């Protein structure tokens, strides 16, 4: 009887602890939108290449303004207001301006519906660590199955803002590592910095995102997706290199993203099958009924293979 009571107490305390940790995720999500901060972000990919970007984020009267500049490599700049992003791509002697939408850039990495994460991940306390000179609590989001990777998050103890994130595959290899090298919390909501530095000696041109807006008849079905994944985005556009219209369907479980590309294979091109890797993402290709099916994502290869198998062309 005593043992039973002890087990019940342990279960209740464990559940409360888990709920508390999920609450911290909720606070982290809110902090990434609401707070004003600037700093240097270092990203390390699976090849151990480190790139640095300088960022500033301000919530001005309820609207978010974000500016990110590359420190290494090309002198590229991103200005983002709410969901609208504009990239100034410095291509040596000209600047290409490109509009984009709905980016989930670190530290704003969480989905709008946080409860969705609970369907795919369990949460654990990883202990206390120091990141960018600040005390953080590490939270570990472990996948409930083998269709996704582990996410380690270091949350600032004072502000709850995520200061570091690591994605670790099922072989305990780091596939993605993003962290603040330093961070400063801003008291001012000033947004005078929210403009590009115009260089009159360089030509500017707009590189519009030419998505096909008309309603496209979906000639495919993808049923029985891996648990937790659902369609979050669809687009279609003509790819010059493929000389064809490709359809991109994005699936997500809230943290992991998978793109499925479907496009016809031209007569002078050979279809491709098999698996490969690019950066932090795996890639799996299949060929069905004259169409190339390509799955790309930072998830295990078997997840991509499973989904491409589930693509049925009508």
């Amino acid at each position, binding site marked *: 009887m005593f043992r039973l009571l002890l087990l019940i107490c342990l279960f209740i305390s464990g559940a409360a602890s888990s709920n508390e940790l999920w609450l911290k995720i909720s606070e982290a999500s809110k902090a990434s939108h609401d707070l004003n901060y600037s700093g240097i*972000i270092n*990203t390390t990919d699976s090849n151990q290449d480190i*790139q*640095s*970007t300088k*960022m500033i984020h301000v919530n001005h009267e309820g609207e978010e303004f974000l500016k*990110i500049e*590359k420190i290494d*490599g*090309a002198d*590229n*700049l*991103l200005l983002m207001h709410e969901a609208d992003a504009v*990239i100034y*791509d410095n*291509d040596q002697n000209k600047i*290409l301006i*490109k509009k*984009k939408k*709905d*980016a*989930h*850039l*670190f530290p704003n*990495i969480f989905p709008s519906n946080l409860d969705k994460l609970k369907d795919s991940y369990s949460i654990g306390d990883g202990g206390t660590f120091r990141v960018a000179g600040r005390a953080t609590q590490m939270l570990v989001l472990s996948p409930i199955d083998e269709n996704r990777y582990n996410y380690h998050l270091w949350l600032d103890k004072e502000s709850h803002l995520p200061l570091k994130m690591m994605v670790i595959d099922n072989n305990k290899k780091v596939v993605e590592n993003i962290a603040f090298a330093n961070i400063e919390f801003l008291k001012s909501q000033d947004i005078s910095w929210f403009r590009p530095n115009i260089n009159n000696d360089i030509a500017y041109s707009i*590189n519009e995102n*030419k998505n096909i807006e008309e309603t496209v008849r979906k000639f495919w079905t993808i049923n029985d997706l891996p648990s937790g994944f659902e369609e979050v*985005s669809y687009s279609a*556009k003509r*790819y*010059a*290199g*493929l000389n064809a219209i490709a359809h*991109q369907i*994005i699936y*997500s479980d809230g943290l992991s*993203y998978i*793109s499925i*590309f479907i496009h016809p294979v031209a007569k002078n091109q*050979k*279809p*491709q*099958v*098999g*698996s*490969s*890797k*690019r*950066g*932090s*993402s795996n*890639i*799996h*290709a*299949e*060929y*069905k009924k004259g169409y190339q099916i*390509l799955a*790309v*994502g930072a998830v295990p290869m078997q997840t991509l293979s499973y989904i491409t198998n589930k693509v049925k062309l009508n």
Partner: protein
Amino acid sequence: MSENISSIIDNELKGKDLDHGLNELSKHSSALSSYRTYQMISDVMRNDYYDVNPELTDKIMSKIHDEPTQFNNGFIRNNQSTATIDYRKYLLVFALGLIAAFAISWAVNNFSNIGSSSSSDFLAADSISQEIIEDHFSTTTRNPNYFLEAGYQPNI
């Protein structure tokens, strides 16, 4: 006999005459030794010579024949003894090996073709459309560096 040897070396004998000449040659050990010497000279002239002393050949071959033969399974056959080998066992292993080879070949051919075109290329990282990779990263990445690099898509 030396005339016979010359005829054999020079390929002058054909058919039954050649059979007869070779039979005669095998009956006379000294003639056989002379034949080997002539053959060696002929080989040297044709740059086809391997350093073999005809006097040693018989001795070496005799020694090799007397050496025990070691098989992969550790079985040692003593060539000087009267021990007999059950060759049926090896025939069975050979037959099973053939069956296994056919089975593996069939499986590789069939399973590698599932869901693919017979004229498909195997996916290589470099052969994937750069536009597709960029679109994936620019729509899904959390990495600000990837997002900035994937912003430019030429010729669209």
